[in-house]
């Protein structure tokens, strides 16, 4: 088995070229790979297509930083605060430049990835019928079911070039355990041509192999594994740290204008060479305030025979 452990900068440089379609933020509010997103911004990647269900500020940051030419998502904004100002500026005023928006709902973006994961051309659903999401979409397509003639909306398979998934732990060979709310992580990992895991901990393979039902996807889909403790901040990681609600409020405040956002980006992304520097800038007290207050361990499971 090959060692897939890379630094964040090498992983992004090697596997997220300009023009890639990148799925991220797949667990919805938790496990958002902010550290990876910030490295993409620092490497000045351009013309990315971002794929996700809802995106809790990461897409907004990357849009504002000029990395993005296309969004295929159900929701882009700031979950606890509301709108995303960079998303608004890009769509309303083409600032920093125009982006193309392909609107999905959470179910339909999940089904689009699932279709790719299943190797089927599309999945016919009955959600969104009659909506303007369906009417305006470049790919969704209204067709009567050949079975009984009733309307369906075909959701074509969507295959990301790469899915970036933050997890609790991974091994160097490319296998990961994730738990909690997982959203469409599995569908994206299986659909994508390749997966980059960013992980709170790198553990021996035995730890991962001890619980194969909890593994997200097979290692042959894995491009790289990056050790990135704190890499999901300000989003939460079950069993590791809590959501930094304040950071979302601060981001909301400091992204109202392009100038505000430029300063925020400089301070929190450009000036931080890596996640360790970022956490250092966040401060030990604030970071400690997000730490676990209680442990709640899963009941034992015996794979013996």
């Amino acid at each position, binding site marked *: 088995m090959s060692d897939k452990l890379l630094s964040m900068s090498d992983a992004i440089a090697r596997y997220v070229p300009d023009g890639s379609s990148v799925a991220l933020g797949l667990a919805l509010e938790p496990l958002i790979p902010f550290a990876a997103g910030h490295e993409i911004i620092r490497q000045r990647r351009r013309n990315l297509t971002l794929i996700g269900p809802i995106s809790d500020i990461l897409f907004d940051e990357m849009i504002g930083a000029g990395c993005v030419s296309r969004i295929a998502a159900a929701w882009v904004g700031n979950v606890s605060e509301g709108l995303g100002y960079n998303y608004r500026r890009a769509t309303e005023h083409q600032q920093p430049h125009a982006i193309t928006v392909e609107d999905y*709902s959470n179910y339909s973006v999940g089904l689009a990835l699932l279709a790719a994961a299943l190797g089927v051309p599309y999945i016919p659903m009955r959600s969104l019928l009659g909506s*303007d999401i369906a009417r305006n979409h470049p790919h969704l397509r209204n067709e009567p079911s050949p079975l009984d003639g009733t309307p369906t909306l075909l959701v074509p398979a969507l295959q990301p070039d790469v899915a970036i998934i933050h997890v609790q732990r991974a091994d160097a060979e490319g296998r990961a355990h994730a738990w909690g*709310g997982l959203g469409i992580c599995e569908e994206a990992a299986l659909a994508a041509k390749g997966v980059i895991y960013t992980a709170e901990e790198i553990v021996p393979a035995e730890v991962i192999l001890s619980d194969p039902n909890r593994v997200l996807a097979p290692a042959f889909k894995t491009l790289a594994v990056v050790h990135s403790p704190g890499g999901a901040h300000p989003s939460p990681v079950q069993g590791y740290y809590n959501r930094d*609600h304040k950071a979302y409020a601060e981001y909301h405040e400091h992204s109202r204008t392009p100038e505000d956002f430029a300063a925020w980006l400089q301070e929190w992304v450009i000036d931080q060479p890596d996640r360790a520097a970022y956490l250092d800038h966040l401060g030990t007290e604030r970071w400690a305030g997000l730490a676990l207050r209680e442990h709640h361990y899963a009941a034992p499971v015996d794979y013996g025979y």
Partner: protein
Amino acid sequence: MAAGDGAYTPQELMVVCAARQIRDGEVVFVGMRLPLLAFALAKRTHAPSAIGLFENGLVRDTPSRELLMTMGDAPNILGAEWATRTVALMGLLAQGCAQLGFVGGAEVDRYGNLNTSYVGSREHPTVKLPGSGGGADIASLAGRLAIIMEHERRRFPERVSYITSPGYGDGGDWRAQVGLPRGGPAAVITTRALLGFRDDTHEMQLLSWHPGSSIEDVRAHTGWELAVAPEVHETPPPTSDELRIIRECDPQGFWTR
């Protein structure tokens, strides 16, 4: 509204109205903010067997121990009875397993269609809203839909410019015509009133005005000639028990002040 013992905020009354939409034993697509408090309130009053679904893949039969900022917050995972893939969870919604769903919106129109996408045109929006999330799926697939809105005239246009979450389209049997398998809005819970929909035309109508508002006030803040149900009345205020429970769930008043 009034000061003194019985004082409450409009949000608290909305939570109470939302809780009353939940029947005991129902499977409810919960969402965040006020509906989440409504779920907790219903569980502790008339609907102890209600089950909550969350689009990140959670099923809960107990409210979380702590107030949530997002459905993905760690306290919402702990004690969940199922934490699965979004697609598996939404599949249950698509099967028709959820009797009720809650959504919010920036705009709602005469036939209960919701816009959470584009104010103005899609090509040149004056405001780009975040989009559907799971809202359009819930509106399409839940057995009944309860809509939570601030009641302002600009949020109640006669016809939304963009249907993110389908209501009754242009009325009548539009939902069946477009192929939606069930559902449609049953209630619109606003800062001024509780509204419903006529069984035949599916046009929105005023069911009850909140204390402090009136039929005239509600109509003045609605962007079309709002119909009024024959049985229209004042919304019963929260009971002291209901207020106590809401305040236990949101002691800082984060969502309700």
